[in-house]
Structures are given as structure tokens and as C-alpha cells.
């Protein structure tokens, strides 16, 4: 068998150089053809003119090649908002002080909050509770937002990293990541979270809006929503919705690093630690080690009566506790 087989023909150097030459010239011709094609295409595109609408609502005609995208597409915007929302504001540590001696259940904070975050009337980021601590102590009104804990149990249990703490202390929820498992509701000792069981109240008008993680709008059915310390307002240097809506001077909001809090009603700024020290400030359920960023001043020297109609609810709360 092996005798019939021809010996493999060995290529001479001459043949090799010949082949190389063919390949080389071929590449050159092909390359220049492609180059010419691309150039031709470019020129062709340059001739195309398109109509654009300017910000001043004027229709202009420009060459297509000169167009550059300036507005970000929705998805890019979302990613940007999510990233910005996740990072928070450097150098800040936001705190809230709630003066219980001034609250008279006006519920303006709740109304402003529900409107800003497109919540149903029964959903509360902030809720004014009717409290009674023991049979002989007086009843009082207690607004209760998310406590924005420095050791938040809710973010620890989230399986998808949807709820998170930011460097400025605010705890947020990203509805784009939330899978609706509601572990965080179970973990939160302050019952600060709400779930969108039903279709959100403004879901039709909100359709197509880019989701802002700092505002929780648009709300999404089947996801969690919670108090955000109005992260979008705070970014602009404005006080949160609830704080500025209060007509009774209940809320102070500020930056712990600056040792200053500003009253939402009078807009007066006072020193944060001094206010707590002078009035015996405290946090809710300190024994849990959650380290809340919301502080309370006791309901001492109230200037309003606790409403008779609310007493039943306060008693009920006492009874159930």
C-alpha cells in the first residue's frame, strides 16, 4: 500500500513566495475596496437630512451625520437614577427629630407624603399614631416614619439587594429589583414598610415615567414602598415633604455632621445635640440595637388637648400591647 502512495510534494521556496504575493495583493485590494465602500457610505449618509424638533419647539432640518444624541434614553436614565440613589450624598448623615409636644394630629404630613409618593390613602410612609403607654399616663399623638436605622434589619434580610442603606444614612427600596417577597416587612420592628397589594393609585398617569428610586414613583404593584426621607428633595437642599407640610412645628430635619436641624414650620435652625439634650430626646425601641436616625422629644407641656374621639384607639393600642 505504501508503495502506491506518492510522496507528498514538497513546496519550493519559489512557490511559497509566489503564494505569499498573491495573498498579500489580494488583501490589499480587498482592504481598499472595503475602505472605499465605507467612505462611500459615509458620504451617502452625510447627504441625508433629517427633521428635528428643538427645545424651543421649532422644526429644523440638519444633516444626519451632524446629529448627536443629547437626551439619555430611558434605560440609561434609570440606571443613572438608580446609581445616584444607591450611593447617596457624600459627607451627610441625615437625622429627623419629632417633637411630640407639638403634634396635634393635623395629619398634613401624611397627606403631603401620600401625594408626593403616589400612595393609596390606606398606605402610610408616615403615620400619626394615637399612643398611650400605660393606664395612668396621658395619651399623645406620635408621627412614625421609617426610622432609617444605622443597623437596619430590613436590608439584612433582602434576598435580592433591593433595599439598601446609603452613605448618608437613608434606607431606600429599589422597586426595579424588588421581587415582592416581603421579608423586609417581617424584619422591620417599626412596621415602617407598605406593600403594593393593589394597582397603585396613579398607575395610569405614571405609565412610561422613568422610575426614580429616590421618590418611589411610579409605584409598582407587587413591590414594597417605604419612607425615603424624601431623598429627592433632600438632594436639592429642601426639607422633606412631611417636614415642610407640618403646620405645628413638629418636625426638625438636618445633618448630624453639621450638628444642625431645621424646623419645617418656622424654618428655624437649631443645634441638633443641644435640642436633644435640652428636651430629653430618645429613640424608639433602642433595646433592639437598630440605632434609628429618627429621634423623639417627649410629649411634655402639650399645648393642645388629646381629642376625646381618639382616646378609644389609644386605649385599644395599650390593651393590645
Amino acid at each position, binding site marked *: 500500500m505504501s508503495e502506491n502512495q506518492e510522496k507528498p510534494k514538497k513546496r519550493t521556496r519559489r512557490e511559497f513566495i509566489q503564494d505569499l504575493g498573491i495573498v498579500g495583493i489580494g488583501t490589499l485590494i480587498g482592504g481598499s475596496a472595503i475602505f472605499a465602500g465605507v467612505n462611500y457610505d459615509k458620504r451617502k449618509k452625510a447627504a441625508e437630512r433629517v427633521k428635528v424638533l428643538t427645545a424651543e419647539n421649532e422644526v429644523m432640518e440638519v444633516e444626519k451625520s451632524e446629529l448627536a444624541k443629547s437626551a439619555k434614553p430611558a434605560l440609561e436614565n434609570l440606571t443613572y437614577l438608580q446609581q445616584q440613589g444607591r450611593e447617596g450624598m457624600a459627607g451627610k448623615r441625615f437625622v429627623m427629630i419629632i417633637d411630640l409636644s407639638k403634634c396635634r394630629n393635623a395629619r398634613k404630613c401624611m397627606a403631603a407624603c401620600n401625594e408626593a409618593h403616589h400612595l393609596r390613602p390606606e398606605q402610610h410612609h408616615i403615620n400619626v399614631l394615637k399612643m398611650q403607654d400605660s393606664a395612668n399616663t396621658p395619651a399623645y399623638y406620635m408621627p412614625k416614619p421609617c426610622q432609617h436605622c444605622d443597623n437596619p434589619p430590613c436590608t439584612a434580610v433582602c434576598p435580592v439587594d433591593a433595599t439598601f442603606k446609603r452613605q448618608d444614612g437613608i434606607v431606600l427600596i429599589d422597586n426595579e429589583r424588588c421581587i415582592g417577597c416581603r421579608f423586609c416587612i417581617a424584619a422591620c420592628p417599626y412596621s415602617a414598610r407598605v406593600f403594593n397589594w393593589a394597582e397603585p393609585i396613579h398607575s395610569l398617569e405614571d405609565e412610561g415615567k422613568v422610575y426614580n428610586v429616590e421618590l418611589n414613583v411610579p409605584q409598582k404593584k407587587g413591590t414594597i414602598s417605604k419612607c425615603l426621607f424624601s431623598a429627592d428633595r433632600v438632594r436639592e437642599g429642601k426639607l422633606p415633604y412631611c417636614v415642610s407640610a407640618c403646620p405645628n412645628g413638629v418636625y426638625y430635619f438636618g445633618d448630624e455632621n453639621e450638628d444642625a436641624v431645621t424646623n419645617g414650620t418656622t424654618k428655624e435652625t437649631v443645634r441638633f445635640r443641644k435640642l436633644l439634650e435640652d428636651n430629653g430626646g430618645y429613640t424608639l425601641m433602642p433595646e433592639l440595637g437598630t440605632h434609628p436616625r429618627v429621634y423623639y422629644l417627649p410629649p411634655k407641656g402639650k399645648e393642645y388637648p388629646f*381629642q376625646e374621639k381618639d382616646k378609644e384607639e389609644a386605649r385599644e393600642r395599650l390593651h393590645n400591647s
Partner: protein
Amino acid sequence: MYNRNFKIVALAVVSVFFLQTFAQNNWNVPADKKAKNSYIKFDAASAGQGEAIYNKNCASCHGNPGKGNVQKTLNPIPPDLSSIGTQSLTDGELFYILSSGRGLMPNFKSMLSDEERWKVISYIRSFNKGYVQTLSKFDPNKAKLIKVSTNYDRKTAQVKVDVKVNEKSGIVALKNAEIGLFVTRYFGKLQIQKNQLTNADGQTVFDFPKDIPGDKTGTVELVVKLNDENYGEIESSTKLQLGVPTDKPALTDKRAIWGTLAKAPFWIILLYLAGVFAFGAVLLYLIFALNKIRKSGSNKPQ
């Protein structure tokens, strides 16, 4: 007929007098503040602007003037501002009440500017048909002539404010001007000490606390608010290095169990990885063992 008219007039006079004294007793407005007049003309334009401010800040308690929808659950019940009790007060008294507040009535000093407060009063006055305004001679353009300089003395920890006026007659010191010293914070201005009056040299000195946090380098923005009868309200700010340098780490810097995956504690990451590896190792071992059994079965001599 005459008798009846007289009775009505007498009743009106008595009630006005009574309400006026009642209101005065209530608020104790200093005489100089009582005589203060607005430099803004109370017309339809200023009343319209005042209405917007009123609806935002006042209506929740005082209701709409003349409508009687005041918040009756409050103690004391806030007055309807179109009432004779309120309208019998002078502009200066209204301005003082609005600026200082008391009890449930918040003060609007920090919330509304002088101009905005006068506009609210303009709105309130629009419900009084018989009201005739006395305009103040104050000229707001004169504020431009004022020059405020602020210096910090590190030794005594004092901030010295110096006010000069560039009048036609030359530069003179402004005395008896009310000066407030503030530090700019993220949401508002923090007042340092109470307002003070400048002395004959146009100077005043504030003790500056040593524990005011500044930025990374300790820089804080000082704001001097000047209020003078003749020159109006002036605000000037300077940046000085007199605060405590503050550079607190981000709250998410530490690894914590509530942190994101990137910030999870090492022991959790290690424990988790160890678990995954252990599980995988057991699986691999089982496969090998099963394979061994199969091999030993097929190698059996038939």
C-alpha cells in the same frame, strides 16, 4: 331714632376699644414696633401675592378671611383675620405678631422675608374697606450703600462685625443697626447668639462657639443679617476657617451584615463559600464512589 343710632355707635366704639385693649394686652407689642409702617404699597398686586403666601402658611389655622373656617379645635381659637379685633391693630403690630409668634402661632421670621410678611398684611388689609395705609418713608434702594465686614479673632474666639455706610457726605459708621450672626447649614441658617445692636463705631462682637462643625478644612460660611430702619434688610456672607474640621466616614463604609454583597462581612463570605465547596465535594465524592462500584461490577469475571 337718634337714640338707636347713638346706641349702635356707642356699642361699636366700646367693642373696638375693648378688642383693641384685649389684643394689646395679649401681645405686648413694643411702642417702636407698633408704629412701624410698610414700605410696600398695599394694593391689589401686593395683596394677590400675599394671598398665595397666606394660603400656604396661614390658612391651615386661620382659615380664609371672612369665611369663618378657622381651626376651632385649637386653644386659643385662632381669630378670623378679617375680624374687627385683627383689623383694629396697627400694621406694625400685625408685623410684630407675624414675626415673633407665640404659643401655637409659629414665628415667621425665618420663613418669610420682610417683604413677604408685608404682602401677607396687605392681603389681610384687603378685607378692610375703610383702611387707609400710611407708607413708610423707607427707601429699599439705600441698602446698596451699606458695607459689612466680618472678621474672626482666633485668640478671643470672637467674630467682629463692622458696618459702614457710603453716604454722600463720606463713609460713616452705622450705629444702632440690628445685627444677627448666622452659620450656613444644609437646610437653613443657624443663629449664633441673639441679635445685637452696633455701637457708635458701627461695630459689634459675637462670641463664636468652638464646636461648630465646618467642612473638611473647618471652613464655615458666616452670614451677617443686618436690619436697620433707614437701610432695610441686608445679608452678607463670608467664608472663614473657624469651625471644627469634619470628615466623618460614610455610614456604609464598614462591612456589615446589612450591607450589600460588596460590603458583606468576610466571615459570611467565607462561611458561604466553605458551605458551597463542602457540598460540592460531597457530591463529587459520591459520584466517584458510585463510579467505583460500577467499575468493580463490570470487571467481575464471568
